[in-house]
């Protein structure tokens, strides 16, 4: 009769799972609910873990200080594996069942997939996707990218090339190396146009797959065009492969990497190949000398001191700080619309020094046009200088 135990065990398992649904205490007080989308099992899970941890920690920190306008923050978190359909399903639950006020989005697929929905439902969406397409309130009124957008970053790169180029006999040559997905491709079109505008020669574009171990053939092809500079638009976990292969081939090209591609971990991941590589820093690195860093470091040490803490962790905190400020300014009975307006009232808002001050307006959802160039020297990430691009309305939404 051992066969009969099978169904019994299954029933018990389901029962346990089902009863856990009731475990969460029903709060009698009103709370402010925020939806939270994270990727912990998919291709960007390396960022996701720290981002999720940062958001959870920041929420707990604010709750320990009384929440927002006296109401506790409730973070409703869903892991969606970087798959748009799961993001859409989670969103529907956020809006219908949990009645969230604002969604902390994650990356390009979920943000793009949810665009029509959030506009219709009037739910502000603070996302880790800094795609330029999301910065125009005329197209995406409820999207608020959480950092300097990719298009501005590629413009910073091209400006840097132009400024440091001293050879008057020819124009500087650049190449774009980017990932074969929506995030990687986001700024390329604008990059092409801007390069043409300021007189920089775009000689090559190389596509790297989302998952790969070897970029030699792409780099060999690029070598034929001999670019002086190359911009890499992909994540921290993939950039070292490109750098290492480039080092192996002895390429003379100088690399500039976007905000998600270079952080405190890069020198360890890429070793010698990372020397002299430049990155665009959007958020403070762990241990940087900014006002908010001590709060983060103390909190992290108190609750899980031995865990990792690269820049995605700071970003997690950052977005919660911005969201909290927006909701606070919306007053005692915040709605999606009032929070949107409140966010748009943020002017030179100090994000505890973690980023340059944020300004959103009702015409421009680009939070900042300032960043910092950093360089890897002697195995460490060293700041070079502050840079900025013009808040040119020509590039909004592109």
């Amino acid at each position: 009769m051992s066969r009969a135990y099978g169904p019994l065990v299954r029933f018990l398992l389901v029962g346990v799972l089902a009863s856990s649904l009731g475990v969460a205490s029903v709060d009698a007080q009103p709370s402010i609910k925020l939806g939270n989308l994270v990727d912990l099992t998919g291709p960007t899970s390396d960022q996701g873990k720290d981002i999720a941890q940062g958001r959870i920690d920041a929420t707990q920190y604010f709750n320990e200080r009384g929440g927002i306008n006296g109401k506790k923050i409730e973070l409703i978190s869903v892991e969606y594996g970087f798959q748009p359909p799961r993001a859409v399903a989670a969103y529907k639950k956020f809006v219908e069942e949990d009645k969230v006020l604002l969604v902390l989005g994650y990356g390009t697929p979920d943000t793009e997939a949810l665009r029509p929905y959030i506009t219709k439902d009037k739910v502000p969406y603070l996302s880790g996707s800094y795609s330029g397409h999301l910065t125009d309130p005329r197209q995406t009124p409820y999207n608020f990218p959480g950092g300097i957008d990719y298009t501005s970053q590629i413009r910073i790169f091209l400006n840097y090339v132009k400024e440091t180029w001293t050879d008057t006999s020819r124009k500087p040559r650049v190449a774009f190396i980017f990932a074969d997905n929506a995030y990687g491709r986001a700024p390329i079109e604008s990059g092409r146009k801007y390069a043409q505008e300021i007189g920089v020669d775009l000689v090559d574009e190389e596509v790297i797959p989302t998952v790969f171990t070897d970029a030699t053939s792409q780099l060999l092809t690029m070598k034929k065009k001999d670019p002086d500079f190359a911009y890499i638009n992909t994540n921290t976990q993939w950039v070292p492969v490109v750098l290492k292969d480039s080092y192996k081939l002895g390429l003379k090209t100088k690399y500039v990497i976007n905000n998600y591609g270079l952080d405190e971990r890069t020198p360890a991941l890429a070793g010698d190949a990372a020397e002299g590589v430049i990155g665009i820093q959007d958020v403070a690195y762990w241990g940087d000398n900014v006002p908010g860093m001590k709060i983060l470091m103390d909190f992290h040490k108190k609750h899980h001191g031995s865990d990792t803490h690269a820049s995605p962790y700071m970003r997690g905190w950052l977005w919660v700080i911005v969201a909290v400020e927006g909701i606070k300014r919306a007053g005692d009975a915040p709605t999606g619309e009032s929070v949107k307006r409140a966010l748009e009232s943020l002017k030179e808002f100090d994000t505890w020094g973690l980023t340059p001050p944020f300004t959103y307006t009702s015409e421009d959802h680009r939070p900042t046009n300032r960043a910092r160039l950093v360089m890897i020297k002697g195995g460490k990430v060293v700041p070079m200088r502050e840079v900025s691009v013009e808040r040119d309305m020509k590039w909004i939404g592109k």
Partner: protein
Amino acid sequence: MKCGGFRVSYRADERIFDTYTPIVALILFLIVLGTVPRFASTYWLDVLNRIGIAVIGALGLNILVGYTGQISIGHAAFLAVGAYSTAILEVKAGLPFYLAIPVAALLTSMFGLVFGIPSLRLKGLYLAIATLAAHFITAYVIIHWEAMTNGVLGFMVPPATVFGLPLDSDARIFYLIFALVVPATLFTKNLFRTKVGRAFIAIRDRDVAASVMGVSLFKYKLLAFLISSFYAGVAGGLMAHHSRILFPDAFTLLVAIDYLAMIIIGGMGSILGSIFGAVFMTLLPEILKLSATSLTGVYPQAFGFIASTRDIVFGLAIIFFLMSEPQGLARIWVRVRSYWKLWPYSY
């Protein structure tokens, strides 16, 4: 109360249900189903919609794998072709949805035909690997044929309109989806009452013997791929309308594996199995998500830990079912039902 099957005429042998009771029950069930959108929340409607789409897809896969024994890991590719074809036909050729979906399904079945050709030479494992390759090649084409599919940037699909009424909410799409689930199930059931269906089963059981008996392997294997991909095409078209924006990311290899899991856990070679499997695989992540969210409310720091249990539970579910009940939920259902019917003589 009947005990055993006494069919005394050829006509009676062909019947699906022996008595009128199941038919009445089924009709009542459908009526109740039809009233669900009035009071269910969008979230649950979304889940039900996804179940409906999964049922159609699983039925198709079961025809190919469960009934005809041709192992295919390429189902995600077929769904993708169906979804993108529907979207492209509607946006670029201006076809209305009631033409776009069937035409797209026909295109998908042609596509399936092409991928069925290796099945004439390859069996079992080798066919599985060939379909795996087919999946990657299809994915490549979809990502890089940007002129048609918009590649990785996503393809937006306008809502289907029925007499001017746009089907842009889960409640409305629900009717469309289930209006197709019912005939799909009925068609499948009828398929296996005909010569074609029996030929499929013969091929699965002993294909050499079947060909000796006169079953043309060439014709019926390709037909199996054709029909199975047609179902996938319909499911894909419905997916396009349900999610309204198509990304290549929505059709990864994991999707194909999910569908295979559906028919294995549900029961291969069984229509009820396809339905059970579709329900199970769609609900499993939702239940996990719900418990993860509520547990996280109590232990916020454990979120990462809890989220990674999804893979473990999925893997364990597959292993568990394959070890203890290879014939899936359908078999368990049959056992439970016959236990009730024959009680107390359940031996």
